């Protein structure tokens, strides 16, 4: 592959999925935080939280499959092998969190024997038996995973900012929502 044609960005589909996930997950974290502290808006927020969680699960699964069939741009030369493995591992960890968190939510509602209503009469089947001790464990796990997701997001965000602004290696442009021309 010549330098002139070397892929510098993730594919447009991958970038679309990335920013869609980012918007959905950040919205979801805000809703989650507001929901647990609210009396007046609790019902409205929970009613959005459930279908949004399932939407994130679907988007992330499609995204993961799409990633598998896409060509990834090479890492920047500025990144050491260790940095590269950390970046890859943290990416996998984020994927795992984004799949596990909605499943824990779904499982926890199942264990509590709540109907898992998405919209109107559309609802999901339970994936776990009615067991409140199991619910209690999963409910706690849902909170812990939400904090973990937020911290992982901050680390991801911080690393990209560091590369882009301090090292000035153009890391952000790899995932920029717009098309970046080769310099």
């Amino acid at each position, binding site marked *: 592959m010549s330098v002139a044609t070397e892929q510098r960005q993730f594919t447009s589909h991958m970038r679309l999925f990335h920013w869609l996930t980012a918007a959905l997950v950040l919205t979801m974290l805000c809703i989650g935080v507001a929901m647990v502290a609210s009396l007046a808006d609790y019902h409205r927020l929970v009613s959005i939280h459930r279908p949004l969680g399932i939407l994130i699960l679907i988007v992330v699964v499609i995204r993961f499959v799409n990633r598998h069939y896409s060509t990834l741009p090479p890492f920047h030369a500025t990144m050491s092998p260790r940095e590269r493995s950390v970046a890859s591992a943290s990416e996998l960890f984020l994927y795992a969190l984004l799949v596990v968190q909605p499943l824990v939510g779904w499982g926890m509602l199942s264990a509590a024997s709540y109907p898992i209503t998405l919209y109107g009469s559309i*609802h999901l089947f339970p994936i776990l038996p009615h067991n409140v001790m199991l619910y209690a464990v999963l409910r706690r796990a849902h909170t812990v995973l939400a904090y973990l997701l937020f911290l992982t997001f901050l680390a991801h965000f911080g690393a990209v900012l560091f590369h882009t602004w301090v090292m000035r290696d153009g890391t952000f442009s790899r995932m920029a929502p717009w098309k970046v021309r080769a310099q």
Partner: protein
Amino acid sequence: MGGWFNPEALTPARFADGFERVDGIYSGFRLNHAKGVCVSGSFESNGRGTRLSKAVVFKAGRMPIIGRFSLAGGNPYVADEPEMVRGFGLLFKLSDGEEWRTAMINTPVFGVNTPQAFYDRLLAAQPNPKTGNPDPEKMAAFLASHPETVRATKIIQSHPASSGFENSTYYGLNAFWFMDANGRSIPVRWSLAPVQPFAPANSTGPARPDKNYLFDALIASILQQPLQWHLIITIGQANDPTNDATIPWPDAREQLDVGTLTLERVESEDTSPCRDINFDPLVLPEGMAPSDDPLLSARSAVYSQSFTRRAGEKKLPSAVMPSEVRE
């Protein structure tokens, strides 16, 4: 996001702490309506409700139900008293897999109309540790600033309690919206009218009845024959308040009998799934929606908080033990 930015704001967690402060902590029990017993049976819809709502529950036919009778307050071992507020939680299992849950009580209106007033009244009624009774000054101060509670109390007192759970009328309290198949919405309230004849509370039983006498009488009557209630929908009009549970709608409002609830079995909480069900009043099927009553979302939030707390706690035996329910 009140709770995060304003530590004084009333959150579900603070609400739950309030209940625990006033009533004490009873591991594995509900924070309110802690003392209860489970029932099950069916609801036979007569099909008339389809005029008001497209909810599957109103299509003619029979569906299974699970319920729970309870007494208000956080003490699961409290001695039964006739004037204690009686609760009836119900879960309808609809044929399309949806659910309708409702939590009703035996007073025609509710004593407060906002979550904050509920919380303030809860604390005002907290027994003084020295006297064992609520501080009359605190309650007087609460009532002085809540004329709606004074008015609601008069209405409640004009409906004397019946002799037991089995011949009580239960009221859904909050207003809701029904949506029909044509997209038309109407405000409604609902209640359960007993088939069992009314008898006043003080006419039966010995002067100092057994600690569980209300529950024991309920168990005895279900074991004798199934108990029945009519589900009555009260149809509101344009100017009827939907956001104030202390105000009754005019008596002239049309009422529609949409079906009959039959209870055939009674079981201790220790062995029935009803203990582990949250009778969240906002688990509604398609065709029903919450009104603008601020109590509704707050009830959902606090019930959920109570459910989550007790879910992980060690379960202590219920006051109504499995042995009491056997014939």
